[in-house]
């Protein structure tokens, strides 16, 4: 017996995928030319699968501030937020995010994954209920596993299905409903207004993860809850710096008067080192840039709509009827065509995410394309063109 034997089926599945010249699980970015281009395996490649929605990774102010912070404060904090790892810049970043969301309190975590772990595990106590969407991100599921709460799952984005479950829960129990604004695999938006209204009707507190909507949904870029005008129904927001903000880290914001007690009770906040000063300084500048980034936001949506329209017109099977986010997911019939398609598109010089079960819902095989505000219209057209060429080369039938 070997502890790793239990993964034999996974290893077998992995080995059975017919990659010949390239493999999505071993891609190495040799050189990053810009927000939208890299050199991979000696080939100049358009990046269309990076989550870098607002194109903040090379924001000049962020880079300058990050460099300055390196000089002034060094490469890392070497400690927990609860001990030696809170610098003035961490407090300033928390204030910047609280202001961005127009809320009282903010906690910065080392990643968005940890923000979900930290919030859900701390909030979900032994006698409490956490109610989640079936297609929730792994960080939400893992937060649930870590909590002591009873976990109840409802069908993806299904308001009625959620309500039926809420009805069955004890009226006087503490309940937390967790949803995402945009779901990362299909790029579909949640019916946030209806879900939150029903959650409130049953006396639940609510947590909305706006990881894939911060920066470009809603007037101030706070996410889908803002876009739908229901921010007053959100008790906790969770977000990340690893997408629109262009660096790494996570956060939670709230108006709850007792929010700060989570700093002493949330283990994923306490038992890990805080984000390095350079990251923190860069994040502050990037969030400020996002605040003033109306043009970028407009161009990002143009890109998303153009890509969606172009691929739809070409006859690809898209996961959403229209562009609900900068994530445009193309559905492929099976693993065989999926792997071949990814490989050929990659050889044509376009990098997208290959998404396969268990990360995808309903066992779907997807080419997950995400656009960036810095993609030019020409690049979007080029992506569409290379999708068509790839379909022809791998024999993928397109709808007429």
């Amino acid at each position, binding site marked *: 017996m070997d502890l790793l034997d239990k993964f034999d089926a996974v290893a077998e599945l992995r080995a059975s995928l017919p990659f010949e010249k390239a493999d999505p699980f071993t891609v190495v970015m040799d050189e990053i030319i810009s927000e939208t281009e890299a050199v991979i395996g000696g080939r100049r490649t358009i990046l269309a699968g990076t989550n870098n929605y607002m194109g903040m990774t090379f924001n000049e102010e962020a880079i300058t501030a990050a460099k300055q912070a390196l000089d002034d404060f060094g490469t890392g904090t070497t400690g927990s937020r609860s001990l030696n790892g809170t610098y003035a810049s961490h407090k300033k970043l928390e204030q910047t995010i609280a202001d961005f969301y127009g809320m009282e309190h903010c906690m910065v975590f080392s990643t968005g994954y940890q923000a979900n772990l930290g919030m859900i595990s701390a909030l979900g106590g032994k006698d409490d209920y956490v109610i989640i969407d079936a297609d929730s991100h792994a960080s939400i599921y893992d937060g649930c596993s870590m909590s002591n709460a009873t976990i109840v799952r409802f069908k993806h984005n299904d308001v009625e299905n959620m309500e039926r*479950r809420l009805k*069955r829960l004890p009226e006087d129990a503490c309940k937390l409903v967790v949803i995402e604004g945009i779901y990362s695999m299909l790029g579909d938006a949640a019916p946030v207004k209806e879900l939150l209204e029903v959650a409130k009707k049953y006396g639940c507190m609510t947590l909305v993860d706006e990881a894939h909507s911060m920066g470009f949904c809603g007037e101030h870029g706070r996410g889908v809850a803002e876009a739908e005008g229901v921010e007053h129904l959100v008790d906790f927001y969770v977000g990340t710096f690893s997408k629109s903000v262009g660096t790494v880290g996570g956060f939670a914001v709230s108006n709850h008067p007792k929010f700060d007690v989570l700093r002493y009770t949330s283990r994923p906040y306490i038992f890990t080192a805080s984000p390095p000063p350079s990251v923190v300084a860069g994040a502050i500048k990037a969030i400020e840039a996002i605040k003033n980034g109306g043009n970028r936001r407009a161009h990002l949506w143009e890109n998303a709509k153009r890509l969606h329209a172009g691929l739809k017109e070409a006859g690809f099977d898209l996961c959403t009827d229209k562009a609900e986010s900068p994530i445009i997911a193309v559905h492929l019939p099976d693993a065989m065509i999926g792997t071949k398609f990814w490989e050929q598109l990659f050889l044509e010089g376009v990098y997208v995410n290959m998404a396969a079960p268990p990360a995808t819902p309903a066992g779907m095989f997807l080419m997950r394309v995400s656009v960036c505000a810095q993609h030019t219209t020409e690049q979007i057209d080029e992506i569409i063109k290379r999708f068509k060429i790839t379909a022809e080369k791998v024999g993928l039938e397109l709808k007429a």
Partner: protein
Amino acid sequence: MAKAETIEKIYELIEPLNKKGIDLAPDVTFASDLELDSLTVMDLVAEIEDEFDIVLPLNLLPELETIAHVADAVEKIVDKG
């Protein structure tokens, strides 16, 4: 041990998913006998919840390997409710 009536109801819900035509019995397992994948299991759980008007918490699922396990759990929840 769960009542025959509870088990029968669960059989009814499983039957449409019983692609391999396995003879349903209390000790039949979802993973190795019926070979249900996790998504099918999720749908089945939702149907059982709606049929009995209960909530089957996610935390319980790893322990429910056989039809009898599910029937016992359902009755326990119904009785508590």
